[in-house]
């Protein structure tokens, strides 16, 4: 008897990319160059700096394709990820785009879509004559890099303490929870202002301030999840096998708290971006002269209080809003999808 075996069509390249390991590699490929590029200012030679961004460009594009195909059931999530990855794409391609130098004064107070000194300005120039289009695109680099780094560090710290408090309980829990409560009852802005004022305004100090402000809340979430999970049978099984507490926390608990905190992480990325922009606006965050959205608002707020020059304020405000909207829509879409399953 002839049996015709139907071999399923070979999965497309995109499908094969969808394993967690490949996505991790792609993420690292997209993220690490940008991080080195922004944090390593002055450390790396100017000419070599642009080259390290090259592998990130295809990586971001592939990540976007993966996200769109696997989240197609929720258009909210697709819209969100489109906004976020648009800015991410802009951040990694900025050095290769035909843009004016973001810090070079060309022609002050050129309004959008106008020509001055034989140069056409799509979005005009600011009060010092720097090209707005170029500054908006360059500006997203620092917000993205410091925002994501700060959130990530806060998550690592918060998760470690949350797992310890939740799993070990007892005195560990009492101590960590009290410390967390002290930090939580400080108004967030007071915490930011005091920490940044003490350490001095810079990107790394923003990471520290965000960690102090966000880690206690993350700790609470993880602690609650860990308290729930540690009563499961597989944890008892591991305990009976005689595994160490560290092993159980990392191997048994951590993968199971991952799901709920991913949605929270998207929301918190939005908060952190708001915080960084706000702090920069208040003069406590990133410092001039490099382009940054909060800084653009801060500088323009002093001079651009006229209808004719309102674009100087509106453009960075809309840019930062679109990025945060992207993070929030992504969180909404992810939550919707996780509820549906």
């Amino acid at each position: 008897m002839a049996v015709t075996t139907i071999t399923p069509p070979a999965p497309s390249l995109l499908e094969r990319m969808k394993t967690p390991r490949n996505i991790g590699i792609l993420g690292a490929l997209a993220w690490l160059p940008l991080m080195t590029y922004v944090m390593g200012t002055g450390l790396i030679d100017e000419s070599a700096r642009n080259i390290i961004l090259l592998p990130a460009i295809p990586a971001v594009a592939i990540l976007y394709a993966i996200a769109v195909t696997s989240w197609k059931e929720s258009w909210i999530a697709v819209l969100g990820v489109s906004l976020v990855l648009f800015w991410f794409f802009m951040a990694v391609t900025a050095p290769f785009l035909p843009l004016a130098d973001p810090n070079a004064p060309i022609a002050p107070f050129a309004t959008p879509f106008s020509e001055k000194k034989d140069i056409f300005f799509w979005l005009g120039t600011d009060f010092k004559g720097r090209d707005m289009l170029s500054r908006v695109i360059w500006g997203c680099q620092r917000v993205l890099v410091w925002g994501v780094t700060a959130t990530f560090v806060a998550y690592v710290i918060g998760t470690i303490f949350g797992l310890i408090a939740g799993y070990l309980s007892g005195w560990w829990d009492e101590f960590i929870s009290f410390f967390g409560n002290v930090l939580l009852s400080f108004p967030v802005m007071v915490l930011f202002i005091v920490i940044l004022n003490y350490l001095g305004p810079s990107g790394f100090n923003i990471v520290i301030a965000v960690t102090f402000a966000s880690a206690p809340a993350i700790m609470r979430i993880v602690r609650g999840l860990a308290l729930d999970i540690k009563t499961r049978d597989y944890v008892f099984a591991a305990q009976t096998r005689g595994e160490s507490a560290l092993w159980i926390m990392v191997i048994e608990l951590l993968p199971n708290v991952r799901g709920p905190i991913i949605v929270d992480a998207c929301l918190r990325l939005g908060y952190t971006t708001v915080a960084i922009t706000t702090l920069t606006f208040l003069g406590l965050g990133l410092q001039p002269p490099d382009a940054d959205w909060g800084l653009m608002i801060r500088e323009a707020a002093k001079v651009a209080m006229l209808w004719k020059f309102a674009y100087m304020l509106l453009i960075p405000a809309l840019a930062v809003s679109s990025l945060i909207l992207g993070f929030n829509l992504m969180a909404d879409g992810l939550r919707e999808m996780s509820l549906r399953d």
Partner: protein
Amino acid sequence: MFKLIGRRLIQMLLIILVASLILFVIFDTDDFKKRIALAELGNFGLSSMTEESYQDWLAEKGLDIAFHQRFLKWSGDVLTGDLGHSFEKDTAVGPLVLDRLKNTGLLALFVFALMIPISLTLGVLGGMREGSGLDRSLTFFSVFTTSIPEIATAIILTVVLALGLGWLPAKSAMINGFDFKQLILPVLTLVVYDFGYVARMTRASMAEVMTSQYIRTAVLKGLPYRRVIMKHALRNALIAPFTVIVLQLNWLLSGVVVVEVFFEYKGFGKLLLEAALFGDIYVVQACTLVAVIVAVLSQIISDIGYTFLNPRIRFA
């Protein structure tokens, strides 16, 4: 109940003590003392000073003693009602903070007066018929408004209403006394930013109540839909939003620094920021004291309100 409140208050005292001690340590650095001296004496005055006269100046300001002694003295003073002296504004801290608190309170009052009716109505209407057109558009719209940070909302409203149409003043410094028109833009900004969050909370709580057994019973019993909503659903649906709204008080006090700075409104948050940048330690201490007390009190109020409104918890 009283035990819980007592525990909270004791915790608050502990937090205040820890916080103010930390603040004294932080602001004890030479850098901050130099900053105060620079602001008061000017660049020339400071550089022409000998080391000895600088020490005299420090002693005159009471900055030469170690931080823990200043902490003890300050704690004693606070208990007698003396909050210290502001270096920057050269006045007593107590009346200064009180004045700014009054301004922020006014702002908060108008924000609440506008936000609570809007967000509760929208939330209830949305949650009443889950999945309806109104519900979906409300959900999407509120994601939109809450996603736009306060600073961007402030900019957009200023550009449209003040710079473009010229209806309202762009700044709210209130130099020539109180002016209601100058209050509109900050209030609008805060309402636009905040109402979506409260509306979504109300919607979620209302939607949950609407799926419960007793509402179904009431509808099947043949009660008019209006009556079901007004008499049965609302009472339970408004418990969760109540706690959320009380907690907004905390945010309005110190979370809206950026709006106050943008509109140059002389509020509590702006005072705190200026004092922290200046190194004006006693003002920062007083502000933190107020902020922590309000934070803990609003938590306690929302807890009490929750238990009071929800009989299941009260008798449990």
